[in-house]
């Protein structure tokens, strides 16, 4: 079974690999869009990653800042869909 820590690590690794950012820059509560770590294309690729990695489908209505603003928010969003 996948733990919250595993999920967090996967998401963090994904963001680091796709942005080439330093690992220290991205904390669990870092506002990844507000701070310009991911842009609009980054959001679309993130949605694709969530689909492929966690089989999680995102609807129009779920595209709100509360679900995606940080790694913590994404974890909460994934858990709410499980």
């Amino acid at each position, binding site marked *: 079974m996948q733990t919250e820590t595993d999920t967090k690590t996967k998401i963090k690794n994904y963001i680091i690999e796709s942005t080439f950012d330093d690992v220290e820059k991205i904390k669990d509560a870092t506002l990844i869009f507000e701070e310009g770590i991911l*842009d*609009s*294309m980054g*959001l*679309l690729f993130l949605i694709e990653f969530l689909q492929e990695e966690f089989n999680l489908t*995102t609807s*129009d209505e779920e*595209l709100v*800042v509360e679900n995606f603003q940080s790694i913590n928010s994404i974890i909460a969003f994934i858990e709410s869909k499980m």
Partner: protein
Amino acid sequence: MTTTRKPFSKDILHIENIDIVCNEIISKLKTDIAKTLQRRGAVIGISGGIDSSVCMALSAKAFGPNKVTAIMLPEQDSSDDSRMLAEKLAAKFEITDTIVEDITKALDGFGCYQRRDDAIGRVITNFDPTIDKAKIEIKQDAASNLPPAFSVTVIKPNGEVISKLLPVKEYLQIVASTNFKQRSRMSMLYYHAERLHYAVIGTPNKHEVEQGFFVKHGDGGADVMPIGHLYKTQVYQLARYLGVPQEIIDRTPTTDTYTAEQTQEDFFYQMPFEQMDLIWYGWENEYPANEVAKVMGRTPQYIENIYKNFERKRKTTEYLRMRPIF
């Protein structure tokens, strides 16, 4: 010394001396084309939209109607009235060298329609491109703190509307396919420009240039952009002053790219032009959000969020405005 600036108001973008502004643009166009680019006239693609109409009117006044070639570049998805309006416009400014170049076959050769429809069909499986209409649009509020994501909307002949959030691969394929349209138009404009030793007039306005609402090497490929510094409401002001036909002024700006009716607001801007112009001006000139909010009848938080949206758009589209790096 302290400089005072105008308090923010709804009239702040109104051009007081429209005749002077027009004459300055016309004079600069002459210098740009004749002296800097060393060309003998101008080629312009006209669509029946407000931006190309104003650029054509300015070009006709700058070089004289016999030194301007107006080219209509329709394809199978273009709206029927685009051509009628473009012809009316050319007649109004006495441009006799008008050419119609239907680019449908070229686009078909590139696989533009097939590639686009394949991508739509992967998302909406019962999409039938022979009878259904389709478009892509942003459904989120412009004041959202999350970047926008596109949805594809299919309209069935019976009026049924099916809309789904676009996965990234399909989104990119649809955009890359439809961008053949602007790039094919650019190629055709340069064919005529080189044939005549003319320059190509680009029609993007300030928002299109700065928010990245243009196709790199497509409608962004031109020699001069005479209205690239003007807000959309100022383009309308010029249109009225220059005598652009009223039907063109009254027409809702569309992308004229997808088979379903698609306004520029739905597709990209997420708010009406009048509002966008003013908030953009406020953002660009660093007016505090609360001062803009009062005038616009919005909350300061809303304006702050729009400021962030603008900042994000300008940053993420920087690539479109960049020259090749070497």
